[in-house]
């Protein structure tokens, strides 16, 4: 509510104090421990079989090993959920950029279980899983 100049100073102050609400405790999380990535497996072949956890694990390890070597393969990745050709993974926050770079640039040739080449499409990444999951529905709005 905009301040009303006709109001007496005392009522205005009381009004604003009442509107402000009571802040009991505040906490700002600047460095959450984990970051989350939403990936989708894409392929130039006709169809990609549905993913399972083991396939996700082996593809991601291959991507990390190629881009970052042994230190890449040592990054702890937790596979949270695998659904169809999409998956959600969790990585330590400081490893988010290397993982996204490695996974985004990886191309798996034939022999990775599919006929043609496969690759990962990074559909989203960020520090907060709720935002990542909530943003799913946004992508399909403008596609008819």
């Amino acid at each position, binding site marked *: 509510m905009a301040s009303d100049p006709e109001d007496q100073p005392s009522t205005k102050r009381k009004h604003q104090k009442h509107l402000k609400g009571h802040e009991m405790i505040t906490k700002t999380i600047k460095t959450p421990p984990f970051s989350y990535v939403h990936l989708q497996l894409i392929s130039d072949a006709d169809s990609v079989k549905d993913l399972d956890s083991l396939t996700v694990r082996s593809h991601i390890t291959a991507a990390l090993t190629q*881009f*970052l*070597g*042994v230190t890449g393969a040592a990054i702890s990745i937790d596979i949270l959920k695998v659904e169809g050709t999409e998956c959600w993974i969790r990585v330590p926050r400081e490893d988010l950029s290397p993982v996204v770079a490695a996974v985004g640039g990886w191309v798996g040739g034939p022999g990775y279980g599919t006929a043609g080449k496969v690759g990962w499409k990074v559909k989203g990444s960020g520090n907060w899983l709720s935002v990542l999951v909530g943003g799913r529905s946004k992508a399909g709005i403008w596609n008819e």
Partner: protein
Amino acid sequence: MVRLKNRYLLVNILYPELEDRKGKTKVPDIVEFNQPTTDAFTAGALLKGLKAEIADVFGDYGSGAISESLNVKYLSPATSTFILRVSRAYYKLAWAALSLMTSVPVKDGKNCVFRVVRVSGTIRKAEEEAIRRARELILKAR
């Protein structure tokens, strides 16, 4: 013009596997620790071995980071010392890869330890340190 900054690593090769020299003249342990390296150990062999190690441990990212600037500035197999030039941003990458190498990168190379003893921004200080250490080693071996 933006100046490309480098770091010069002075590295010793140490041989901690002291063999039991039966019958041969007893050499002081410190001399055996710092024994000379085989002549097959050239600058090319060192670069090749180090680049392979970096590709293994740090992947494409590591190889790309140091490929432009990695260079052997001085190598002496006799004193088992060399000076390596790396770009300033990634010298720790090269240092880590050196620490993880376990044998001399030649055919049938002996097991050894690569120890970085000085990091400096100019090659002159690295050279002075190499001379100082060689002198100290001679005194210690007496």
